[in-house]
């Protein structure tokens, strides 16, 4: 039984209209970055008359975008790598062994899911200062790693638990140590979960701007989101350049997304739906 033709048409109208609402601002951002300022102010909705890359040239002259990009890559990649290593080790311990404190340990990690970590920013700031980590990428890496651990331990523990014990027993009979069981047998089997954890945390680290706003002062140490914050303060009237900056900031993530859109969407929602 299908909905009636009338209902169906309304459904199509609503679905595609809202798709337009979702995409159009992004399209507008891209198009505007190829216009001159005069064109934007005269006709904000029109298409560019001559595709000009001038805004991009100006942008790259005024901000060290390559630095921002490399900082973002460094911070995100190192954080995600640390999260994967630390969380999978902890999850392996919690899921595959039954020491009496394992349950408490698991619960202790889960508390982190309920804590809005931003609220600890003042003590965190003072702590980073004591450790002489403010104004270094390591302040961000440690925070992203720490705050990514709860959800990652949660997802990975769940996955480890689904694996049959026999695999492990067979490996042990063949003389595998705990570490070999973990590294050679189980890790390859939970690859999908590792992918999910990777994506969730990568998006988080890449897009965050609250922590770099507070911890990073040096221009050349800024990540993309905070780097762009400065641009908006300084070049308020140069809209084509601002649009170019926005486009360039959005681009890396959109490219990565199109390489693996399905995993991306599943990965990001996995933590919530599970």
């Amino acid at each position, binding site marked *: 039984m299908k909905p009636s033709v009338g209902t169906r048409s309304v459904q199509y109208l609503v679905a595609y209209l809202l798709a337009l609402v*979702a995409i159009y601002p992004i399209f507008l951002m891209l198009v505007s970055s190829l216009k001159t300022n005069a064109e934007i102010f005269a006709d904000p909705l029109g298409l560019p008359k001559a595709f000009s890359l001038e805004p991009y040239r100006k942008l790259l002259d005024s901000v060290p975008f390559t630095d921002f990009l490399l900082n973002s890559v460094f911070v995100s990649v190192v954080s995600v790598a640390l999260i994967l290593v630390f969380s999978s080790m902890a999850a392996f*311990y919690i899921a595959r062994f039954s020491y009496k404190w394992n349950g408490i340990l698991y619960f202790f990690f889960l508390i982190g899911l309920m*804590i809005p970590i931003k609220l600890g920013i003042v003590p965190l700031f003072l702590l980073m200062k004591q450790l002489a980590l403010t104004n270094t990428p390591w302040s961000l890496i440690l925070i992203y790693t720490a705050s990514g651990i709860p959800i990652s331990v949660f997802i990975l523990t769940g996955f480890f638990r689904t694996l049959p014990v026999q695999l492990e027993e067979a490996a042990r009979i063949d003389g595998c140590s705990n570490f070999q069981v973990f590294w050679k047998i189980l890790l390859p089997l939970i690859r999908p979960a590792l992918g999910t954890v990777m994506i969730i945390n990568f998006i988080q680290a890449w897009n965050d701007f609250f922590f770099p706003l507070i911890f990073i002062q040096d221009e050349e140490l800024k990540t993309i989101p905070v780097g762009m914050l400065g641009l908006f303060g300084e070049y308020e009237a140069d809209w084509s350049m601002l649009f170019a900056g926005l486009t360039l900031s959005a681009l890396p993530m959109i490219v990565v997304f199109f390489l693996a859109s399905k995993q991306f969407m599943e990965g990001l929602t996995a933590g919530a739906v599970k």
Partner: protein
Amino acid sequence: MQTKSKGNWLIHLFPIPALIVYVLFVIYPIFSAFTYSLYDWNGIAKGEFIGLENFVTLFQVEPFNEMFWNAFSHNVIYFIVEMIVQNGFAFILAYILYQKIRGGEFLKIAYFLPRLLSVIIVGFLWKLILNPNFGALNVFLTKLGMEEWAQPWLGDPDTALISIILVNSWFGMGFAVLIFLAGLQSIPEEVVEAARMDGASGLRLLWKIILPMCMPAITIMTVLTFIQAFEAFELVYAMQGSKGEPFYSTDTMAVYFYRLAFGGSGGTDTVAIGLGSALAVVLFFIVASMSAVSLYFMRKKEVQQ
């Protein structure tokens, strides 16, 4: 499945790295904020222990109490509007996708695309679009012959907050669609078929069968929206600065907290770490209690299964 063999004590080192980082940079800061809230602490050094006085100040002393309730009411509005606009539309879209529609895969990607942008990029982009003079939205309305609808969206206290919440809905809708769709797809087909055999269709089917069976997804989305609404900071900061312009009409508790903790006119012009920490504690209990309630319900669900 106890697996003990000799010389394997090394296994106890496995959770240690995660534990250290987590305790140092999540647990310790949050619990320190609790103690900070009990001290008179303005600026550089920790002052004397003053018990709950910061909380009293927060709730009873002008202008802090006004600031608090003003920001709090905005968080509540944030939550309600997000539930209606973002989640309402998202559910409708998910239901349409669930009933199969041509281009479904494309639509999912389209709805999700804004979610890939950093919130600060979203804020800046919409600041340009909502600009009263050259912004695309007002120009668009004028072209449609609806000049009287054109507004200084972010400059007028009456429209600023709602504009920001709608931008947030634009950002978050695609994620909500995916959650609801996952919920809808987890409903066993036999159940829906059986209801159809019994003659249920259209709204009746939706109301009596689909919605109740989709409750887990709806609960999760409600909780996430609540947490997000009460932590709202980035978008407001990007679009309206740390004072929630104009005239604190877009202020939220997290923005107010930022002002108190890092200085600049949160009622005072100096940093007020003790007071800021007190606000953090209040916010912590609001968010954590919602999370705890949700964990309880999810546990219950697990038991039933």
